[in-house]
């Protein structure tokens, strides 16, 4: 009982706090939002959206080290890939360099990677791209991903840390994280306490090779509370925050961002934000929700609302976005150069949007790829992504008697084959559960696969439902 009540009390306090933060900017908002159009007389589209502003990025100051961190952080978990001459996949290094150069030019200075990202290639690619810039121009964040290792020995933990430095071609790491903490306290202890890895990392911080020590959180509140209240000064903490997760995080999988943020603020631990778009779902909101947003700001995308929301609270150091396309980078740069905080009215509109979202049939996948590779060849995120896109487009049929049945059926089935090869679709899932422990969103992947497969089967067989 007590535990259940707790968040509610805090929720009241935090709501007030959040609104206080919001209160500042409502007057400036409109002017700033239209700012990029000022003086523009060109009617062509390129002219309409204007130049990407340089030198106007919003920065936040890390209270521990005084780092001036750009509010837009570059998530390096989705680097663009290409096929090499042998037909095998590899990182498209030129594209990475181009993105990194452009980001740095426009004020981004925080780059977040991990040894396990992009099939293990992320650190190398990020290192190559960043090596071409002066070391003091950027902060690098990487992680102790020992949850994906066979053993959890100190030796392997240290080796991973050293390897990160080598791959990134740096002799110190600005932000080092204990990766994906949250499944259980014993698991946390096994990974970092019992083997002495945390002690080692604290020594490294003392020696200056780790400038900030923190952890990324996915999981249950008990573990969050335990780790936050340990006898150690955490320099930062990475949490999942967006307007849906603020108060509507799935209790089986995650903790409301409102609670996490408040706890961190109390301890003066700055927050690094991940999943500001919920794996892209907040950029592809259902039509009904988009209409609400467009009525207020016709020229603003759903994604920019989400970024403004995630960047508004003051204790947030940076908001990570895994940008694969230049257009995404440019749009995010515009949103944060400078940040126009979410106003109270806008916030209440986003609450309406959230209501639409949580009542939709989304599978809570953020396409982080942690579950991959599936030993039986499924493309799990692609299957979920296709399903979610149909939810976003309002094309998920409730019944076979729906008015748009024929068209929605065709779109789902053809689109399914287009986005996922037949042998990698949901019907191939054997329910072996290998993927389940890997999902940071705690999705019951086999069960959701069945849901998608059942839906696809109903459409293929044209059966009544």
């Amino acid at each position: 009982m007590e535990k259940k009540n707790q968040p509610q009390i805090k929720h009241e306090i935090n709501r007030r706090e959040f609104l206080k933060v919001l209160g500042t900017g409502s007057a400036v908002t409109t002017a700033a939002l239209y700012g990029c159009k000022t003086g523009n007389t060109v009617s062509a589209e390129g002219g309409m959206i204007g130049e990407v502003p340089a030198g106007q990025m919003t920065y936040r100051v890390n209270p521990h080290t005084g780092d001036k961190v750009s509010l837009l952080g570059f998530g390096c978990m989705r680097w663009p890939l290409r096929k090499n001459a042998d037909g095998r996949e590899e990182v498209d290094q030129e594209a990475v360099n181009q993105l990194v150069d452009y980001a740095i030019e426009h004020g981004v200075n925080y780059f977040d990677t991990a040894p396990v990202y992009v099939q293990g290639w992320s650190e190398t690619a990020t290192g190559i791209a960043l090596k071409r810039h002066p070391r003091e121009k950027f902060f690098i964040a990487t992680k102790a991903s020992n949850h994906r290792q066979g053993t959890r020995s100190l030796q392997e933990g240290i080796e991973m840390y050293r390897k990160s430095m080598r791959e990134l071609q740096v002799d110190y790491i600005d932000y080092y994280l204990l990766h994906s903490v949250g499944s259980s306290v014993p698991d946390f202890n096994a990974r970092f306490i019992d083997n002495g890895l945390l002690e080692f990392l604290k020594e490294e911080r003392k020696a200056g090779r780790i400038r900030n020590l923190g952890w990324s959180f996915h999981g249950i509140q008990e573990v969050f509370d335990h780790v936050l209240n340990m006898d150690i000064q955490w320099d930062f903490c990475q949490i999942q925050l967006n307007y849906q997760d603020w108060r509507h995080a799935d209790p089986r999988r995650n903790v409301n961002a409102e609670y996490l943020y408040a706890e961190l603020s109390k301890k003066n631990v700055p927050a690094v934000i991940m999943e500001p778009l919920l794996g892209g779902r907040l950029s592809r909101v259902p039509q009904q929700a988009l209409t609400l947003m467009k009525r207020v700001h016709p020229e603003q995308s759903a994604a920019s609302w989400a970024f403004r929301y995630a960047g508004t609270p003051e204790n947030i150091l940076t908001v990570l976005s895994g940008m694969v396309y230049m257009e995404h980078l440019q749009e995010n740069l515009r949103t944060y150069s400078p940040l126009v905080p979410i106003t109270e009215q806008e916030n209440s509109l986003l609450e309406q949007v959230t209501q639409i979202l949580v009542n939709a049939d989304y599978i809570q996948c953020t396409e982080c790829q942690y579950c991959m590779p599936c030993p039986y060849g499924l493309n799990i995120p692609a299957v979920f992504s296709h399903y979610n896109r149909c939810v976003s487009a309002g094309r998920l049929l409730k019944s076979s008697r729906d008015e748009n049945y024929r068209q929605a059926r065709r779109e789902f089935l053809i689109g399914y084959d287009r986005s996922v090869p037949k042998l990698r679709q949901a019907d191939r899932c054997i329910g072996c559960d290998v993927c389940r422990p890997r999902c940071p969103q705690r999705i019951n992947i086999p069960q959701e696969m069945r849901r998608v497969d059942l839906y696809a089967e109903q459409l293929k067989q044209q059966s009544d439902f």
Partner: protein
Amino acid sequence: MLKKIRVVIAGLFFLLITLLFLDFTGSVHVWFGWIAKIQLIPAVLAVNAVILAALVLATLLFGRIYCSVICPLGVFQDLVSRISSRRKGKKNRFSYSPAKSLLRYGILGLFIVSLVAGLSTVVSLLDPYAAYGRMAANFLAPLYRWGNNLLALLAEQIDSYAFYSTEVLVKGWLTFGIALVTLIVTVILAWKHGRSYCNTICPVGTFLGFLSRFSLFRIVIDVNKCTQCKACERGCKSSCIEAHSFSVDHSRCVACFNCIGKCKFGALKYTGARAVKKAAGEAEPPGLSRRNLLSLLGLLAVSATVKAQQLQVDGGLAAIEDKKVPDRKTPIMPPGCESAQHMKQHCTACQLCVSACPNHILVPSRKFSVFMQPEISYERGYCRPECVECSQVCPAGAIRPITPADKSAISIGQAIWIPDNCVVNRDGLPCDSCQRHCPTGAITLIERDPDHPKLKIPVVDKELCIGCGACENLCPARPFSAIYVEGNVRHHSI
């Protein structure tokens, strides 16, 4: 005028029947499936008396218009011949040649014997419709699908769902080879000698030619108008006009009406036989008489009856071999065809079902006795519950029309589990794929051993299994599935 009508109708038939082999959406069959069903050999195999009678009657009335209009191989040869005659100096490249009766009737005899004896390979090799079908399915269908896939790619670019991509596969290399040989032979013959294939090899041509001797309407040369210029003879792709004797071999004339236009003096007419007799004073054609004709028709009827009887007497439930190796002892036949025996007797191996199957499970057989006839293999898909495409398209009655409801109760095979291949045993992981996808609930999972309550193995209820192959196709074990389907010699309902 007659020629123009012939060309237009033949072009339409040819286009539509080709489309039957190209279409993979199932929509063309709904409207034009009958074009395959009025083909002669399929109608014989389907024991379709109405169509047979209609074709015989049409030939007795108008001559071999079947060969000119309905038969796709005939029209295809006309096309080749026409291109050949576009060459310089080759416009009128034909000349009369005597009929090769021994060869013609020899092949027809062989064909009828094969038909009665059930030597289906010979039947399907000689059937002109099937020969064309194999060419269309093997050469044109891939091009058509590539074209479609290109459109699908473009459609995807603009977020349109008007086209979707499909697999381009060669279903069987042997059949592909046969089709290639057929293509080469027919193209060479048509290029050089017009309709010589139809008048020497094709058993349908010989049979209809035999009838068309007695046809009511036919081409006649008016002796009074003819100047013996030989324009008609040199323009006759059937090489059946002998100008100096004013005679036309009506058994070889395919009623193309080309000669009528060639004659500058209006000496050729397509007219009633009585008029012919009056005009030319011609006696009844030598050789085979009307009596012979009737006996030949009788033979055909007998052969059809023999087949019908065999169908009924053939019986006995299949013994299902329980083998670990996944090569099948009994081929799997599509639902609606009742048994492998039935397939063997009725199929003309035209590949229409093979190209129509959206799940890519029908492939031409490589076994000699049922060469190129379809059988099922579950590597690329399985027999999906909503699909009865093959049964709808089959023109020869080898696969009888069924509904999805019928199909859900027709057992075409039995699933057999191979413990050594199963991922539960091999990888030590739980798997419920076969159980979950079984449309009839024939598979249940039981605990493998008490120490591992999560590891469950499948058991198949043979009373419920319909052999659709969902378990085999979706089984994660590779390269050999841990559960595979063994065909039923005779289909039965569950």
